């Protein structure tokens, strides 16, 4: 199982590399609307995923795949990720690809990310008290 996902990851990393989406330049230039690679790619991927889910609606209980909704964690998580994207020129996923592509600063992104994940796990009750408000419901606009 994990070997199969490893191969999915290899394909994914290859696509990241070949489309150039992993470059900080591509990501940052999307933010200043000079390069629309990221938008094109994400739209294509979302539409394809949606089509797959739509077709597989009978085989997969799509509602279990819906992300839990909680307003404050969603908003603050989005804001923190936005700050992270500007500072690193990467998303959590493309940071791994940048590491593989040989960008030296990606090591620091991963290092910071691991530190952050560790502290998040250690202080989760405190973080929850700060941000998480309501029981997490799975709200989807359609499914």
């Amino acid at each position, binding site marked *: 199982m994990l070997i199969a996902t490893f191969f999915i990851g290899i394909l*994914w990393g290859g696509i990241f590399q070949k*489309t150039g989406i992993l470059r900080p330049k591509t990501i940052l230039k999307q933010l200043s609307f000079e390069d629309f690679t990221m938008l094109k790619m994400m739209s294509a991927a979302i539409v*394809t995923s949606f089509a797959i889910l739509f077709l597989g609606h009978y085989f997969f209980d799509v509602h279990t795949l819906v992300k839990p909704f909680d307003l404050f964690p969603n908003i603050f998580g989005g804001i923190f990720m*936005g700050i992270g994207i500007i*500072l690193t020129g990467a998303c959590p996923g493309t940071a791994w690809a940048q590491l*593989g592509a040989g960008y030296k600063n990606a090591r620091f992104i991963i290092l910071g990310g691991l530190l952050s994940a560790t502290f998040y796990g250690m202080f989760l009750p405190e973080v929850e008290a700060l941000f998480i408000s309501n029981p997490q419901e799975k709200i989807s606009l359609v499914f």
Partner: protein
Amino acid sequence: MHQEEKNLSPYIGGILIGLLQIPSLLLFGKLLGLSSSYGSLSAYFLNIFYDLSFYPHIQKLLTGVGPWQLSLATGIVVGAYLSRKPKISLDIDPYWHYLGLQKKTVYTFSFIGGIFLVFGARLAGGCTSGHGLSGIATLSLSSFIVMSTMFLTAIAGFFGLKKIFREKN
């Protein structure tokens, strides 16, 4: 030193990534996502030194979705490494120099940014792939909120960063 040509159209690349949802769904019954990989790797690391039963939320990442996303992430590292153009050594993206940032500044920014990135992703319950790709495709309300706040913050913040550093140099 930095080649500009693109080999794969972003539309094709996006469709291919979307198609990767099929094996992911069939094998694991889950949509693609990557933000748990950090938590999982740190859990494996901590597991060597500490008894993790004090931290059930870290221990949880040793099984289930954690190792699965970690193997995806490892695959991405290997895939990006294998498909990179040989003989090109990348220190940092030249675009950072264009923005007027020095190497050391980029390293510091990367470290701080990594902390923000993963903290935000864990808090929001997904990253650009988990929420942006899979979450939006299931039309989750949370994903729309996360993606809009994320890109609004990033667009506004990058505008500010560009202004500060481009004008200073």
